[in-house]
């Protein structure tokens, strides 16, 4: 199943970068700007997470892009075109928008919710029907027929959020804005939906600006992270690995928290360490705990520590791939980490 059978193939050929050019927003009646001279570029197809303290201007930054909020000064360009040159309503129809609590219309069925933008765009009925089915499959709500007629109140939070994502993707917009889309989910559901969304993102390659409170979510999802500090100033804009290893200032270091070092380990999987290691030496001890190849170093470390062992046996579908030592986990080979931090952009 390809995603673009009913949607125009825009994203791969078109430049859909989002450029913030000296963007400042001062709300009327406020003494300090909510955003102050923000300069970032989200490259075509990139997933950028905006993080920062509450009131740091994250939502404002997002709403400036689809013109729900007006710029005070500076400019935002999507694919080299200033958003001010496009009528606001037309602009919004080319931007996917997903928010916390899903923002689904309670009086619309799942199918009707997903069809909102295509209907506004006057797609014909059969195309909308096909597209809706395609999207539900994409977000894992199958069999499609059993979901179409449900109302949001009949869905779990995670299911609602999946429909919210499907709705934002409906008209195949080149750009996606997501404002804490998973903020209301419990940790387990949240992880599952994050994984799914990452997979979707890799498949459809939308330029995505993703606001989150949760630095761990940003580290997991983002190609690059933009960290805002109070007063709406950009503190750092870099890859997760770079942000974790070289925080730009004290604010960033504190924002990342005391577990910054551990978080960094969450960026690399044991499989990557095995690959990077020249000698995947054979068992030293026979009672090593087992870990799956796709777990992160952080998770593996936890397993090793819980078992009181000095390393772990790496398994994949029941077969033994090799072993990692405690030392490998705590101080992974540099090329394993680099391989990770360079990935994503332009892939």
């Amino acid at each position, binding site marked *: 199943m390809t995603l673009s059978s009913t949607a125009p193939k825009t994203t791969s050929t078109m430049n859909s970068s989002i450029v913030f050019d000296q963007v400042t927003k001062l709300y009327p009646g406020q003494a300090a700007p909510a955003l102050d001279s923000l300069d970032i570029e989200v490259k075509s197809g990139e997933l950028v997470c905006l993080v920062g303290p509450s009131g740091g201007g994250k939502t404002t930054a997002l*709403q400036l892009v*689809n013109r*729900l909020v007006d710029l005070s000064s500076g400019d935002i360009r999507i694919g080299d075109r200033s958003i001010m040159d496009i009528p606001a*309503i*037309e*602009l*919004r*129809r080319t*931007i996917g*928008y997903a*928010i*916390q*609590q899903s*923002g689904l*219309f*309670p*009086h*619309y*069925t799942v199918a009707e919710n997903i069809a*909102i*933008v295509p209907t*506004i765009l006057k797609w014909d009925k059969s195309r909308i029907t096909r597209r809706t089915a395609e999207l539900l499959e994409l977000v894992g709500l199958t069999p499609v027929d059993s979901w179409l007629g449900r*109302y*949001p*109140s*009949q869905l779990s939070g995670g299911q609602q959020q999946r429909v919210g994502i499907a*709705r934002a993707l409906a008209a195949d917009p080149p750009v996606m*804005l997501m404002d804490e889309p998973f903020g209301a989910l419990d940790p387990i559901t949240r992880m599952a939906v994050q994984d799914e969304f990452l997979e979707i993102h890799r498949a459809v390659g939308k330029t995505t600006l993703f606001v989150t409170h949760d630095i761990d979510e940003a580290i997991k999802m983002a190609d690059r992270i933009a960290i805002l500090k109070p007063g709406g100033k950009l503190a750092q804009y870099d890859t997760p690995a770079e942000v974790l290893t070289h925080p730009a200032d004290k604010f960033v270091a504190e924002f990342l928290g005391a577990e910054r070092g551990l978080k960094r380990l969450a960026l690399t999987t044991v499989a990557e360490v095995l690959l990077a290691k020249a000698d995947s030496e054979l068992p030293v001890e026979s009672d090593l705990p087992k870990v799956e190849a796709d777990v992160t170093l952080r998770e593996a470390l936890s397993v090793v520590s819980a078992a009181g062992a000095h390393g772990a046996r790496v398994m994949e579908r029941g077969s033994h791939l090799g072993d990692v030592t405690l030392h490998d986990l705590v101080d992974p080979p540099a090329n394993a980490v680099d391989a990770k931090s360079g990935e994503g952009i332009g892939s």
Partner: protein
Amino acid sequence: MDESEGLMNEIFGAFPFIAANFGMLMEKTSEHLIISLVPLLAAIVIGVPVGIWLGHIHKGEFLAVSITNIGRALPSLALIAILIGFVGIGMLNAMIALFLLAFPPILSYAYQAVNSADRDLTRAARGMGMTPLQVLNKVELPLGLPMIISGIRTAAVLTVSSATIATIAGSGGLGDVILNQVAYGIEGVLAGAVWVAILAILVDQVFALLLRVAAPTGVKQLRATTV
């Protein structure tokens, strides 16, 4: 003992009266309905659109609230008395009084219905590229409809029951019977009162039914699952 027995007899006497004077009561009822429903309709025609519009632009809270408070503070009897004092008696005046009675709840409920629409929802709607009119038609109105109808329901019960008093203004209706013990006897007065009460309950129930129909499906589901 004797007195209460007498009262019971009179209350029961109301039913034979209703049976014996059914034609006359029906005539008075239709008058009564005209006196109450015409002002109600006028209040709907003006109050609903104005309330919706003010709610949509999120302005006029002050207006909506103060009109409601004035409406609440003024008992209908006083209102009619004041009005008769100002403009004199007659059917039109009774209707104006009833209009003034019906207008505040209709306006303020319609205003609240739209103004209180979930901001996240309207933001999502605008963010998807809906025009303001589409936001109104597809989000604010369907979700606010039950509340708009609640306002009309309140106003309808109020006008139907208060139309009785409008007789003071010489406008006809069931008040003619209720306020004329000389002609109709105590049975007649009670019969009229019972009849008005039944009428008000009927009107109330019609709107209750309408409300059930008007609640958007998904929202009804929500209620069903949370109860």
